């Protein structure tokens, strides 16, 4: 069983209008790259480029992306969660997620955590327990309760994504 406890720093993402709501998949990875770059490692160098060109400079592998409401709205491009994963993001923490992005992320084994992110600041050290639904903000000495993950999503994460899940069971095991 894969460990579902994650440890890292918060990296807060904002749009130029200072809002962290509705960060869409075009902002995560622009269409002008994703249509012709197939190499995901290469593609991940353009993460958040259109809204925060400096993002990758302050980011370290294992960090969390922290945002507001409706993260991942817009296009169905799976390159969005994939570039987050290839850049080394260990989970995205947001107030809420858009539907297609939500599925895509768990399908490729990227954990998403839904909770009140208003008290999390840039650089805060966080410890997430995915199964228990708890985030410990070690910098602020606070505990945040997250929306519990549905069992199927935990299964997907433990199997390493939907493809591995299907290889293992030959069919969906809901």
């Amino acid at each position, binding site marked *: 069983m894969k460990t579902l406890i994650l440890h890292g720093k918060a990296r807060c993402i904002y749009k130029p*209008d200072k809002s962290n709501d509705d960060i869409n998949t075009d902002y995560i990875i*622009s*269409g002008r790259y994703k249509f*012709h770059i197939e190499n995901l490692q290469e593609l991940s160098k353009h993460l958040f480029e*259109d809204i925060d060109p400096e993002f990758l400079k302050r980011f370290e592998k294992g960090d969390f992306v922290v945002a507001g409401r409706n993260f991942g709205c817009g296009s169905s491009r799976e390159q969005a969660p994939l570039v987050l994963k290839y850049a080394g993001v260990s989970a995205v923490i947001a107030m809420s997620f858009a539907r297609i992005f939500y599925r895509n992320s768990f399908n490729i084994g990227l954990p998403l955590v839904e909770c009140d992110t208003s008290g999390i600041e840039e650089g805060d050290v966080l410890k997430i327990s995915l199964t228990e639904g708890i985030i410990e903000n070690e910098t602020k000495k606070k505990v945040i309760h997250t929306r519990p993950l549905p069992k199927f999503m935990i299964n997907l994460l433990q199997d390493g994504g939907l493809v591995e899940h299907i290889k293992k069971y030959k069919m969906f095991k809901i």
Partner: protein
Amino acid sequence: MGKTIAEKIISKHTQLKKSTVVAGDVVLVKPDFIFAQDGTAGLVIDTLLSLKSSSARRKLIREASRCGFVIDHSSPSPQMSISKIHNKIRNFAKENDAHLFDIGNGVCHQVIPEGGFALPGRVVIGADSHTCTYGALGCCATGLGSTDVAIAMYTGYTWMKVPATFKIVCKGKLEKGVYAKDLILYIIGKLSAEGANYKAVEFYGDAISRLNMDGRFTITNMVVEMGAKFGIIPPDKKTIAWLKEHNVSRKYEIVHADKNATYEREYEFDVKKIGPQVATPHKVDNAVPIEKVIGTPISEAFLGTCTNGRYEDLYIAATILKNRRIHRDVKFIVAPASRKIMLKAMKTGVLSTLIESGAVVISPGCGPCVGTHGGIPADGENVISTANRNFKGRMGNPEANIYLASPATVAASAIEGKIADPRKYLTN
């Protein structure tokens, strides 16, 4: 307890003995049609190929007749790397006997309904977020990612959480110069970009009944811009006539909601009060009455896409542009949504009118909407577009600004070189 359309259609597509599912249930669903487009198909194919070693099967697609690939997003290919992806798609489709809609057929969201692959009562999934468009025909259609689509092609199934449903009733008659696009922009502005996240939305009311199918596709196309999973318009005579007109011979079943169906929320809009709307940069739910942005200079006008590239859209624009010239500082680009539409517009003279006015007509497909080709704006330029997204960078340049509006508003603005009210061109 009564059932919504989504509950009924999903029930019919599960393998469950239990005859009905309700909102919140997570079930295995067998879609009637599954597809990907050239922006998402590369990953679909890679995922399927990765399953080859663990599969004893000869074919990676379980039922090829239910699967398709559409090359529309960067078509014809503007660069070598995309040409390579296109050939990968062509070869894979051929080897696996899947349907292939190559360059020039048009946007997936027009080609698939025209081909009879999205029918009343059906379930369709596609690796494109605007797959929800087909709900105008009374089906459950939704966008998923590449892995979901690959696994659905491989197993023949996908999982779905049965969505709760919103009921939106649109009453009254749209004013002259106000169209389906204005109505849906207005609704999204009211409900917000996540106002219907995870929900099915059923549309009712005389304003919806009065819309032709082209306008109905515009409505359901944009429900994903408020987060919805399905946008559904119950079929009527116009739906059936549209299917006949497109020679759809496959059987289908019309599904209506029960009178006592459970809706999570109900909204009612009086459409008489709605004038032309414009969604200002960089969010679709930034919808404002046109009066607030009239006079904003524009450098590019784009008429097309899965939202507004249909015959009626081209016709409306041509009505305004007849015997007029576009402003000399405007680049006016037109991409018909499909080859069929382009041919019809040629035969009726609509295309000539547009070209005579100064339009650049490009091949049927997504055109400049997704920022890979066909009219990428320069730094600082304002674009008025009939598309469904105005995100920063969407058309390939993060330094450009995109305003979304109806075909009529785009045509009027192309004439004036600034955002203009179409109503003054429609006086008689």
